[in-house]
């Protein structure tokens, strides 16, 4: 890392646009992280009821670009990258990966969407496990 390496940028709520123009010799990837969550109440391995998850905090997504941890939250982020192929991987809450071909001066937009299902016992007291699925897709401009 050199001193003039551009830093990732928080983009706020929105569709991942509004990031800066990448500096000379750089491209970028913008990603919007989103989830929806529900609680399944389980008794004897069977789901007996379900509800929206309005009371359990969902930890931030964990993102790795080319094996390196980068900051992320449940909103939009902009990551400057050198032109060429890059491996974008989300590890938590559910794994999803994508190989991105970054071009100089351009920002590729991605969208990560997680569907989180939290299994609790039938009294709605104890969390048993988190079951999540996710997709990471390119967004057409």
């Amino acid at each position, binding site marked *: 890392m050199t001193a003039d390496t551009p830093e990732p940028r928080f983009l706020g*709520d929105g569709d991942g646009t509004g990031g800066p123009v990448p500096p000379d010799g750089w491209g970028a990837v913008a990603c919007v992280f989103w989830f929806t969550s529900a609680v399944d109440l389980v008794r004897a391995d069977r789901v007996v009821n379900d509800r*929206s998850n*309005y009371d359990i*905090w969902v930890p931030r997504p964990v993102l790795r670009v080319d094996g390196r941890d980068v900051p992320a939250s449940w909103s939009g982020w902009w990551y400057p990258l050198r032109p060429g192929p890059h491996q974008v991987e989300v590890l938590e809450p559910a794994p999803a990966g994508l190989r991105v071909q970054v071009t100089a001066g351009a920002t590729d937009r991605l*969208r990560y969407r997680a569907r989180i299902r939290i299994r609790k016992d039938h009294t709605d007291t104890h969390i048993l496990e988190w079951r999540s699925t996710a997709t990471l897709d390119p967004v057409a401009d």
Partner: protein
Amino acid sequence: MPDRDLTGDVDSDLVYAGSPYRVLAHDPNGEGGPPPLPAGHGGVAVHTWCPPAAQRHTLAPIVGVDGEPASYGWGHVLIVLPAGEHLVEVQYVEPMRTIPVTVTAGQVVPVEYAAARDGVPAGAPGRRRPRRRSRRGRAFSPVGYAGVVLAALVVFEAGLALARAAGLSVGVAGVVVGVVAVAVAVLGGVAVYRHQQRPARRSRRRSTRTPR
């Protein structure tokens, strides 16, 4: 964080169980301003509230900072944070809002979150808003009634004309018109019923506004 720095402060009832942050009760209009904060710390004073029209179908959001939960409930809290840049997030079924906040030592930054009037998480791109008017309301509008009466008259006249053209007596024509009218009524009823049922079922499955 040493307790003596926070002498006299009261933990908020709204603290999210297991939160790594100190979450204090906070009265923004109280005498004497914010409580003394530990050295190098500031705070975010979060006010969450819900419009009266939405209270029936909206539950409180969870407020967090830098990916960790802080408070859960409606009201005022003061989240004690080290000076610096922080991300304040609100979750309610989905990510609702995330804003960057700069906290300076000894200062309190006010943040306000108001629930949407319809109480529906809207973070999903392309999510449809709930219908303002039900299909039922539209199907039984005065215009609909007028249309049904007109259609019945047209069927009746057409049946009579057809029967006369075919040389049938008025009695036989009456039977023909009756059969046609019953068939039209049954088919129309089925069409209206399916029209009402389909969107209702979909919105029930997608709805997140009355979690229980």
